[in-house]
């Protein structure tokens, strides 16, 4: 005899206990600290902060620990925490000209004021597993630069600007909408699109950007400049009448210079794509710049080629991995009721189809 399954509550509690046990792993192995994650898995921390839309390396590290290294789960933890925080203002736009760079490269000019600075990059490492690292990760002497980098490094695109070769970006001076406090309505402003892209899933944005390179709305991008470093965040305090520095964040900025033959409305000139992401997030910021550029077709009078990366609605509605993973995974929740109604329908349609075949045979 069937007895309705009770005890879901106990099952949930036990599942959570088991989950904690799995997270901790073998007790004979030393426990991982949040500080270790923050210091030694910093690129994971950066991704969690960027897609979690919250700049807090300590909380991001904790989220990674709690989520057993599942970064989307960690991003989700950070987002859910972020919801509970009050929004107390809109900072001034960060001045990336005054970034204290640890890396700054240009693919368009061999040298430029400020110089090329490689910084801590994987770019020219040979991807050979370092078996020594398994036993001993201590580092040997690291040489120090003899003089510091200039405190103000001009943007490469500003050199093209003086010649009028690159399209100007208007400064709207207006406070952008906040994607997390207002429902997304289309068409979205560029500021809103960029907000959405910077917190979008790295894999999704990468795939979209890659598709433009392979010909789906190709936009001939060069990395005009990529820079990583710290910028200060300033907030206007109305009571004081001036802005104050409220902290420093590390960001990665990418400006692409895109070939552009001109359109019905715009003269031939270089155009730009823009990426700005929390932390060292090079892949993400380059990808973001490419997708940004692809989404600007309307404003530049280009043709809509029907490519996915040109479709604002497609990109913005599907880039958020917390929304995507939630809706994807929810199909594992109970759907008995819907499935039952489908069962009834299929049985009914089959009965009718069989009846139809039989009557047809009888008629023949």
């Amino acid at each position, binding site marked *: 005899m*069937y007895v309705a399954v009770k005890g879901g509550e106990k099952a949930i509690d036990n599942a959570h206990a088991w989950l904690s046990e799995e997270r901790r792993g073998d007790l004979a192995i030393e426990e991982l600290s949040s500080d270790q994650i923050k210091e030694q898995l910093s690129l994971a921390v950066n991704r969690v902060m960027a897609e979690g839309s919250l700049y807090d390396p300590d909380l991001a590290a904790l989220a990674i620990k709690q989520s057993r290294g599942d970064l989307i789960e960690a991003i989700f933890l950070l987002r859910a925490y972020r919801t509970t925080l009050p929004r107390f203002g809109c900072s001034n736009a960060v001045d990336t000209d005054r970034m204290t760079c640890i890396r700054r490269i240009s693919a368009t000019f061999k040298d430029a004021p400020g110089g090329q600075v490689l910084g801590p990059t994987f770019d020219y490492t040979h991807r050979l597993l370092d078996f020594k690292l398994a036993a001993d990760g201590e580092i040997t002497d690291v040489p120090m630069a003899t003089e510091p980098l200039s405190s103000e490094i001009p943007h490469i695109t500003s050199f093209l600007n003086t010649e009028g070769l690159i399209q100007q970006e208007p400064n709207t001076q207006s406070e952008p909408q906040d994607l997390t406090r207002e429902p997304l309505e289309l068409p979205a402003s560029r500021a809103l699109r960029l907000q959405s892209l910077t917190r979008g899933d790295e894999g999704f944005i990468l795939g979209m950007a890659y598709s433009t390179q392979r010909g789906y709305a190709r936009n001939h991008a060069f990395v005009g400049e990529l820079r990583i470093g710290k910028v200060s965040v300033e907030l206007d305090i109305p009571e004081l009448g001036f802005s104050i520095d409220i902290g420093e964040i590390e960001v990665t900025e990418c400006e692409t210079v895109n070939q552009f033959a001109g359109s019905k409305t715009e003269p031939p000139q270089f155009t730009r794509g823009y990426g700005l992401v929390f932390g060292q997030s090079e892949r993400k910021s380059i990808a973001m710049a490419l997708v940004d550029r692809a989404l600007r077709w309307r404003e530049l009078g280009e043709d809509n080629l029907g490519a996915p990366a040109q479709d604002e609605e497609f990109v913005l509605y599907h880039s958020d991995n917390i929304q995507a993973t939630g809706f994807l995974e929810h199909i594992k929740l109970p759907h008995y*009721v819907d499935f039952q109604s489908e069962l009834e329908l299929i049985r009914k349609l089959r009965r009718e189809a069989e009846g139809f075949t039989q009557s047809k045979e009888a008629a023949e």
Partner: protein
Amino acid sequence: MNEYNFAYLDEQTKRMIRRAILKGLAIPGYQVPFASREMPMPYGWGTGGVQVSAATLTPKDTLKVIDQGADDTTNAISIRKFFQKTANVEVTEVTKDATVIQTRHRIPETDLSDEQILVYQVPIPEPLRFLEPSEPETRKMHALEEYGLMHVKLYEDISKHGAIATSYAYPVKVEGRYVMDPSPIPKFDNPKMEMSAIQLFGAGREQRIYALPPYTKVVSLDFEDYPFEASKAEHSCELCGSHNSYLDEVIVDDTGGRIFVCSDTDYCSSQQKIIKEAV
């Protein structure tokens, strides 16, 4: 739990949601965009319903949460626990004792009263979505009351299958104006939507809220010669014997044996009690 505000969301957010609810009630069936928040449960788990419940609940309320009609499905338990923890409200499994009922995929069998609010969890609020993927387009279609595409779809179903091949989330027309998605309830539940209670629909991921005030006219779309039919399994409940409640099919052995039981667990146990008392 003192770290969070009553019912988790801060008062400003709840006000924003209440405004959307009021707008929804003023324009029955119209999808009101709202700034959905990230909740501590995943999208798809009922974040829209949870936000609507959070904005609706007062400390005096009694909450019931059901999923697939049942109070003891894991996600119903999880949401109920969430509100016990964050709002410290009374909870119940008894339909008539609840003032707020959050549901996924069912309308309770017991008639609701004008003292009650039914909150639905909605995955895709747009009834036209699978006919037209673009949101600006579907909003335009609603604005112009351009529902021809939907009727064509239903017609094509009939010409292909001899019947309208939609068994849940069956579209309805509200007060002769908006075509609305009733959330994925079985079409068996559609006629119940003309009721005394307030019905609120929350879609978190899609950032939409819509509503039906009490006694709103809700008509399931159909054709004169192919009228709408609220169907269910042609059996009665194995446990309480009810003929007119919606049934779940349960596989009981590996030789194809199956029984049918009420999906509404509270209704089923109350029916069983009546039978026991009568004996």
